[in-house]
């Protein structure tokens, strides 16, 4: 089913008696496998409103991300949370949609500075599992009217409702960028250096570490040209104790470093399962050594670990109680069904989550079992 209007979407869900598999562009098949009839939002397209002076865009959920980015680019603006493109990693094709980005709370390296997708969400319109059209939030930047179901829907992977329209806060593009690179650090020192950089006043907008034979710790600085040069110099001074430092001052090359990191380019052709672990950075430093794989890298100042392990390995077990969560991003269906894609929740949280799903989707037809 590919409804063309919100009313058609509501009808499709209201009349559904068996499970539905909700997809946007179909480029992010993340989650426990779901059997069901496909319900696609790909025909719900169009930018409804874009006010650059108010930093606001409202679009139907099936609008291709590329259309949104083109529109924003014309006004020198962007989605500051830098959503990852999963296609090459997951071997999918097609057009990612803005609804898909929101449904997965897809965020990139700038998460550490600008926040996640959920931090830029202003409003949603969605259809719940009974076919009722609902709205929450709005199109303004500050809004505490009623419960924040916008956050709840963001990252709910279509299990609470199917979004028909989303409103997002956008931000100005920065003038230029550069990347400060520290060479040769072991993991613990690298995380220490990233903590020092992110805890400096120099507004580092991304911090990643690539381990290996020639490890490199990378810090992105964005802004006006003179300010970027100044802050790179200051960072070099601040971090001098950590060793050899170079600066990639070519903005195009710097941008390429971060789009590769965002899209986990290094693992596109790697054999095995791909995991994504979110922990606090200092725990990341400890955990990295216990993963049992050398194929990993760290983003978010050490707080996000991307790792490749042999198919079927339960990497989550190696966290051994470390607070945080591990998500199985790429694996075959059997492994995903066996290991659970999403991190198990504490009992009271699991009970609340199940209770919310039962309220939003009493028929149990919206991506049932995808998250839990």
């Amino acid at each position, binding site marked *: 089913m590919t409804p063309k209007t919100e009313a058609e979407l509501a009808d499709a869900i209201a009349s559904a008696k068996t499970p539905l598999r909700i997809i946007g562009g179909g480029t992010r098949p993340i989650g426990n496998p779901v059997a069901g009839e496909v319900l696609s939002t790909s025909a719900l397209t169009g930018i409804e409103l874009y006010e650059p*002076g108010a930093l606001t865009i409202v679009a139907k959920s099936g609008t291709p991300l590329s259309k949104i980015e083109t529109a924003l680019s014309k006004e020198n603006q962007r989605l500051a949370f830098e959503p990852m493109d999963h296609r090459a990693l997951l071997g999918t094709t097609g057009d990612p949609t803005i609804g898909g980005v929101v449904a997965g709370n897809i965020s990139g390296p700038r998460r550490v500075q600008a926040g*996640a997708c959920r931090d830029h969400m202003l409003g949603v319109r969605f259809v719940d599992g009974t076919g009722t059209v609902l709205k929450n939030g709005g199109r303004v930047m500050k809004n*505490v009217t*009623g*419960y*924040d179901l916008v956050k709840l829907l963001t990252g709910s992977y279509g299990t609470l409702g199917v979004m028909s329209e989303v409103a997002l806060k956008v931000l100005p593009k920065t003038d230029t960028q550069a990347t400060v690179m520290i060479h040769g650090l072991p993991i613990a020192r690298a995380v*220490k250096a990233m903590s020092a950089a992110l*805890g400096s006043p120099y507004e580092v907008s991304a911090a990643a570490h690539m381990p290996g034979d020639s490890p490199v710790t990378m810090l992105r600085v964005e802004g006006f040209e003179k300010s970027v040069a100044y802050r790179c110099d200051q960072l070099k001074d601040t971090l001098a104790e950590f060793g050899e430092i170079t600066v990639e001052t070519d903005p195009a090359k710097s941008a390429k470093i971060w789009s590769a990191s965002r899209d986990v380019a290094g693992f596109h052709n790697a054999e095995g399962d791909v995991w994504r672990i979110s922990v*606090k950075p200092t725990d990341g430093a400890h955990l990295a050594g216990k993963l049992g794989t050398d194929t990993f890298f760290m983003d978010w100042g050490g707080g996000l670990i991307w790792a490749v392990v042999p198919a079927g390995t339960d990497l989550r077990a190696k966290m051994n109680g470390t607070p945080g969560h591990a998500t199985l991003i790429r694996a075959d269906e059997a492994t995903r069904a066996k290991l659970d894609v999403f991190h198990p929740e504490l009992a009271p949280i699991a009970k609340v*989550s199940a209770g919310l799903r039962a309220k939003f989707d009493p028929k149990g037809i919206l991506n049932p079992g995808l998250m839990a």
Partner: protein
Amino acid sequence: MEMPAPNTAVLSKKAKIVERLQSVLPKDAVIYDEAETRAYECDGLSAYRCPPLAAVLPSSTEEVSAVLKICHKEGVPVVPRGSGTSLAGGALPTADSIILGVARLNDVIETDYDNRVIKVQTGRTNLSVTGAVEEEDFFYAPDPSSQLACAIAGNIAMNSGGAHCLKYGVTTNNLLGVTLVMMDGTITELGGAHLDAGGLDLLGLICGSEGQLGVVTEATLRILRKPEGARPVLMGFDNNEVAGACVADIIKAGVLPVAIEFMDRPCIEATEAFAQAGYPMCEALLIVEVEGSDAEIDEQLGLIMQIARKHNPVELRESKSSDESAKIWLGRKSAFGAMGQINDYMCLDGTIPVSSLPHVLKRISEMSKEYGLDVANVFHAGDGNMHPLILFDANKPGDLELCEALGADILRLCVEVGGCLTGEHGVGIEKRDLMVDQFAADDLENQMAVKDVFDPTWLLNPSKVFPLASSESRRALAIAAE
């Protein structure tokens, strides 16, 4: 604004409830004497008062859990209270309710500069969180104007903002984890020092839920390194529309100021009379502040002033020193005090799309004339969060009602132009009955169904947020259960 009649069954067993509460708390942590419960009869919305049945001041998460278990068992409504600074009546008790105050939960549990987080008990005041990390040059970003007094618990309940949200976001963007006690006494953790939720974003749901889903006793907050410096520029314009256009042009130019504050003529006149900040007498005044090193500030302010000049400002005053900065901020920071000198006032909190600014200001001034009450406007222009201040005389019969009616009309106007009823103060009782203007019945039903999951018998802060008529059948559950 009405509050429901108290449950007489609860009132009649006050002695038993107090006794049970005393069995789990230290003696001085249960306040039930009628003279003493008066201290908790209202919050910042002081036009409405009602002493609670009792007030409790637990000192630990476990004590909070024990209190909630008792209230759950006995069917006693619980009103959580931070510092009681809510302007929306979020902490207003009913006669049959227990006030659960977090004032004694004020420890810093852990400061962690490597991971840039602080873990605190939620009775701690907003400003003292920054105070705890200041010596390392860090700060906690959300800065509601009540920050000296307001508690983190209340900030989380209302998802509080402040003047610097344009750059740093509001509470929800700076909250990483909480310890949550649910109405049945269950203690659980959401989030932590790591980023984002593994499953559903319940942390995002809890933040801004006005104490209706659970009681937050501990919070992990993001702390940030202080910028090297900050300086504002002040600009005056001879009409609101031009000031609004200037704001939009600044934002479009790619500069992201840390704050853009707006004051209109009535507000400028009042603050000048009160604080003598040396503001120009004009229709609209903007204070735009940027951060960074001196050179970075100069560059950004240069760009901002270049944009401002295109709009023919009547005044353009760049701060070159901390003294000059303080002078520029003086009037803005005294605005509320200045209004209080003139009269009683009611502070609204609607948000509008920035593009509707001139239209909304024009309509507010027309409505002000229709109602015969003065309105001054001071607000965060970058994010469209307005704070119209309606002046009235509390001692004049009918004036409060007139003021509330004008306030309701102004908030309806905010919704009509695509905005919302409240940007940072919360709904409480103040905007409860206006929720039907922003939400359809289905939307409200959906939100109330969320409360059903956390608090099936509707004992936590039950008479807030939703119009009494829509929540009536659910609130009746508590009475029936008792």
